[in-house]
């Protein structure tokens, strides 16, 4: 039983500009952005290294002569090397997890926060949210951009927010029933959790008033979406964003549910072959690259997201003219998203280096039993680390677990395995066994 789709309402005129109008707007805003990044020593140097001057960027095609910005570049500027304004003008900081245990910090001015709310309001409106609705936000609030981004977006629409934050499923469901929540914001895997709780407790569907859900924060499949829609009888809408570029609000689905409309008045999207760095043909899969056009605190030029998707320039039947991106189908690096947290396999290696006597041979296995991600690190036993005492062996596991948690922020299961049993690879080691992908869960 799927819910009825909402009426198609387009919030901003900018979503329906002709390509010429949009190009004009983008070009003008690109010039402003290039001027703004001249305040950032990193960009000045990067432009010079690439042999490009700010003045030589005239048209949108010229953008391709500018260097890419990568996560490693941002990490090199930790914490605030990418700031393009006076720190006194920053209103808010957020951060995303990095490979070293230190987050990548992002900053927002008042205008940035207004833009962010507007962009979230834009995709929420496209997905049916109206001022009379009540929205329950079951995202984490904190450095993570999901909670606050959506929170202000919902308020911008004029709807009411229940900032339930993540976790405590019985309480989430109680609030959904008692407050007659119209829409839910969370990760799709958490929505499955909620759905399972509702079904297993025989909560009748008419006790709930839920109509829509807005999902982000992790990749998910069409199957998962279909399952949630039929179990809860609601319409689910996908949205996309990453904190390095803004947070949620870069793109979102309309009622046609055939790709996420990118807010091109605020971002230039490119899709490249991650090996050759050349653009791929429209409709072909590649790595998404974004340039922000209006961000003040931390403008970003050609950020390589490592997210693999395709772009569809065809006009949508909803009337919006903006380019649409497909759902994310993979990564061009080895980053994993576990319980919504970004994890790089190299972090596990760093953690093991901190525990005396452990070998650098490890494998991470990720599964999603009962809709919750479970990560297990298998570590090869060595003679140095081995002890005949069970207590010492349990302490070793605990020590490894704490080291892994210290770097990734996640509690993982630790399994000790026989030496030489984990596969050895010539060239790039394959450390990851993602059963979620093998089972079609992501």
């Amino acid at each position: 039983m799927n819910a009825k789709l909402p009426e198609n309402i387009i919030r901003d005129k900018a979503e329906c500009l002709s390509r010429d109008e949009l190009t004009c707007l983008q070009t003008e805003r690109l010039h402003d952005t290039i001027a703004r990044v001249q305040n950032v020593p990193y960009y000045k140097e990067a432009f010079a290294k690439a042999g490009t001057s700010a003045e030589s960027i005239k048209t949108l095609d010229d953008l391709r002569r500018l260097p890419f910005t990568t996560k490693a570049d941002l990490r090199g500027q930790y914490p605030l090397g990418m700031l393009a304004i006076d720190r006194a003008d920053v209103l808010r900081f957020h951060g995303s997890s990095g490979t070293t245990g230190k987050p990548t910090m992002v900053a927002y001015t008042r205008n940035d926060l207004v833009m962010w709310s507007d962009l979230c309001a834009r995709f929420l409106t496209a997905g049916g949210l109206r001022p009379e609705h009540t929205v329950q936000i079951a995202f984490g609030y904190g450095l993570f951009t999901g909670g606050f981004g959506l929170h202000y977006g919902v308020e911008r629409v004029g709807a009411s927010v229940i900032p339930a934050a993540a976790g405590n499923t019985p309480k989430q469901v109680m609030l959904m029933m008692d407050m007659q929540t119209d829409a839910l914001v969370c990760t799709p895997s958490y929505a499955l959790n909620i759905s399972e709780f509702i079904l297993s407790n025989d909560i009748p569907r008419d006790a709930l008033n839920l109509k829509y859900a807005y999902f982000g924060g992790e990749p998910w499949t069409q199957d998962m979406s279909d399952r949630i829609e039929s179990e809860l009888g609601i319409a689910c809408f996908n949205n996309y964003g990453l904190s390095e570029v803004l947070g949620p609000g870069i793109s979102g689905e309309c009622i046609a549910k055939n790709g996420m409309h990118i807010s091109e008045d605020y971002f230039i999207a490119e899709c490249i072959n991650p090996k050759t760095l050349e653009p791929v043909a429209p409709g072909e899969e590649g790595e998404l690259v974004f340039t922000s056009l209006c961000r003040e605190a931390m403008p970003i030029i050609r950020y390589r997201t490592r997210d693999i998707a395709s772009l569809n320039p065809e006009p949508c039947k909803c009337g919006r003219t903006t380019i649409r991106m497909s759902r994310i189908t993979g990564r061009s690096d080895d980053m994993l998203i576990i319980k919504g947290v970004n994890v790089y396999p190299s972090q596990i290696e760093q953690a093991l280096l901190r525990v005396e006597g452990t070998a650098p041979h490890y494998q991470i296995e990720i599964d999603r039993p009962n809709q919750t991600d479970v990560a297990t690190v298998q570590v090869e036993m060595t003679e140095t680390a081995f002890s005949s005492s069970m207590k010492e062996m349990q302490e070793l596991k605990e020590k490894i677990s704490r080291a892994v948690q210290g770097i990734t922020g996640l509690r993982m299961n630790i399994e000790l395995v026989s030496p030489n049993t984990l596969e050895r690879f010539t060239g790039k080691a394959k450390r990851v066994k993602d059963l979620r992908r093998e089972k079609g869960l992501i």
Partner: protein
Amino acid sequence: MKLNQLSVFLENKPGRLREACDILAKNNINLITLSLADTEQFGILRLIVDNSEKAKSALDKNGFVAKITEVIAVEVKDEPGGLNDILKVEEDAGISVEYMYAFTIKSGENAVLLFRFDDMDEAVSALQQAGFNVLSSKEIYQRATN
């Protein structure tokens, strides 16, 4: 007074214990006694064998992690309260048992128990002072082969 024990790391996988025993058999190692401590994910096989060094190198060569640790063997009267007497001595000396198991052989009318204590030297002297017979490895091997 101390005895060499061979500990072997065993991942909980079917056939892993048999594999270790097979290597020992092929190398003509005689098992005098053993104990297996396990968790749901891995186990520790503790062995007293007639030649620990040879057994370790055979296991090493075959991809096992093995380690030699010292334990002590104590004679105890085979009657109710026998073990209790030993534990009392160590408790009074403030020494804890990490693990223990038993020999299948007897020393006359007495049973022989194996201990790993957190302080091995203190444990031996406490037991000897209390009049217990702590067996040397030579005695153990002699009795095992008789």
